[in-house]
């Protein structure tokens, strides 16, 4: 399958003014401003196939938004090539943007004071969508997102979740081939989150829409994406399936064991005793040791009398936090 997004060696540098300090700093800032160059993106290269849902993750300030802005044609990169859907985003912008939809989780594209349906009608004019097609799409989106009660109310009266549903619908009215979602589930309650996730999956299936998603919610990543791109300090650190990276880290298990009686010392080959208090102990498998429940029970019951045990592996969030730390990409 042909890739719909092809990013090659994209670099983006920003010049930021340095603020002079001390005497006459105001004048210095005004007349002789010094600049510092910041590399927001360094040699970003990746490909996305049509119909993929890609999770674009990384800590705050990693360059996620900059990448999205380059992909949607808002920013021009300093160097590198980028072909999306057969054209270069920042050249012939007006033609290019017909095929993309963008939702910025914290910014609205709809009008604050007028009923949502009027904003949609305006979008219909902006994208020159034929009436028939518009009605059909709206019906489909309406069914999938339950917009019926919302469409005739002004945006300002809607809750955050209801707004997000309308934003999603608004970005899909023109049937884009690629959808960029910048933190679509931010601040949503559990039920709405699930609804939004289901909807994203639904649209992806129905229209084979390619979706690029940035999020800090790892459950979004687990539930939706078939590929992740991990970015930190402007560089790509990992791209591939999320399962891979998860397995790599989730092999480390924490086992809480309850014993039948007090033991002075707990020692088990291949395991590290993290804590031990009376009849409870917490063990952890050493990196060299693969955890197997059956094997573990056999080994521990050989020397000790146990009542109960509980195994936990790292949560997805912990996996990611570990990953960030490992790559030292967390801003301090």
């Amino acid at each position, binding site marked *: 399958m042909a890739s719909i997004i092809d990013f090659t060696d994209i670099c983006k540098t920003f010049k930021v003014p340095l603020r002079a300090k001390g005497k006459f700093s105001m004048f210095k800032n005004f007349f002789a401003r010094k600049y510092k160059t910041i590399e927001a993106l360094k040699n970003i290269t990746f490909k996305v196939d049509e119909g993929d849902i890609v999770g674009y993750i990384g800590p705050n300030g990693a360059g996620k938004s900059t990448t999205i802005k380059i992909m949607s044609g808002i*920013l021009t990169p300093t160097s590198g090539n980028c072909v999306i859907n057969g054209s270069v985003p920042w050249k012939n912008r007006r033609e290019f*943007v017909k095929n993309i939809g963008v939702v*910025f989780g914290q910014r609205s594209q709809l009008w604050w004071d007028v009923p949502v349906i009027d904003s949609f*009608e*305006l979008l219909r004019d902006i994208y020159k969508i034929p009436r028939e097609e518009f009605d059909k799409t709206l019906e489909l989106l309406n069914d999938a997102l339950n917009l019926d009660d919302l469409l005739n109310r002004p945006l300002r009266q809607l809750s955050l979740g209801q707004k997000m549903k309308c934003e999603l619908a608004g970005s899909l009215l023109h049937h884009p081939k690629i959808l960029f979602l910048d933190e679509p589930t931010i601040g949503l309650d559990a039920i709405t989150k699930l609804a939004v996730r289901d909807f994203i999956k639904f649209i992806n299936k129905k229209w084979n829409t390619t979706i690029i998603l940035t999020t800090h919610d790892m459950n979004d990543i687990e539930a939706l994406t078939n590929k992740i791109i991990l970015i930190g300090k402007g560089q790509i650190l990992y791209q591939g399936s999320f399962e891979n990276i998860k397995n790599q880290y989730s092999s480390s298990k924490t086992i809480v064991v309850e014993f039948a009686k007090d033991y002075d010392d707990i020692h088990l080959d291949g395991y590290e005793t993290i804590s031990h208090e009376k009849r409870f102990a917490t063990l952890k498998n050493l990196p060299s040791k693969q955890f197997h429940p059956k094997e573990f029970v056999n080994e521990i019951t050989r020397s000790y009398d146990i009542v109960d045990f509980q195994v936990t592996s790292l949560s997805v969030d912990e996996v990611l936090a570990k990953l960030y730390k490992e790559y030292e990409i967390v801003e301090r």
Partner: protein
Amino acid sequence: MLYSKFLKMHIQTSMQYRFNTIFIGLTQAIINIGEVLSVYILFSQFKSVQGYGFYECLLMMGIIYTVFATAECFARGYDEFHKLIKSGEFDRMLIRPVNIHYQILGSKIELTKLTRVILGIILVIIALIHLNITWNILKILVLISTFICGFLIITGLFIISATISIFTIEQFEFVNIFTNGAKEIAYYPINIYAKWMTRIFTYIIPVACFNYLPLSYLLEIGNIPMWLCAISPLLGMLFIIPCIIIFNLCLKKYKSTGT
């Protein structure tokens, strides 16, 4: 048409805050009436300034009020461009398949300014009744083009101010010297000021083209060739072209703001 949809949305929005809209509209007109009165008082003392009487100045004031308020109403998007950038609304415009200038014009339509437009037109009518002008078709055309010229020049100044905000993000107060300065200066026929000032506002920012030049033509006074006075509004209109070109060039350097 798309623009009429934009307009409809703005009307709908102002209707949501009806009292506010009407109140702001009235206050703005009242401020201007105050200014007119102060000029009236001035002329009741001096009778004439450099040969110009009260009604000549009233005509100038009427024209600048009308064109400035029209620009503030319909080209507000440029005037408050820094807000569009800061709110991220401008990023949004860049992902729409519509000409960017069309979207900026449609993004803000400040209907409360219409009271000033109406006031300006009333002042122009009062002035024209009192001035001794022998009318012909050409003079009517010159008068109409004067209004268009004024609107385009003020809009051009707004576009320059917008261009600077592309880089500074903040509104650059220095530009106000030219926008508000051009407005204040045009209350009078600008050839009453010092030579250098008249020159700046004739050759650099062609305020003269909707000010004393067409006035000279209407009254058939002054020593500038009449044909030049007649076409001056048309020449002034050209001012907006470099403004748009510069804006478009600078747009390529646009940096956007964080999330």
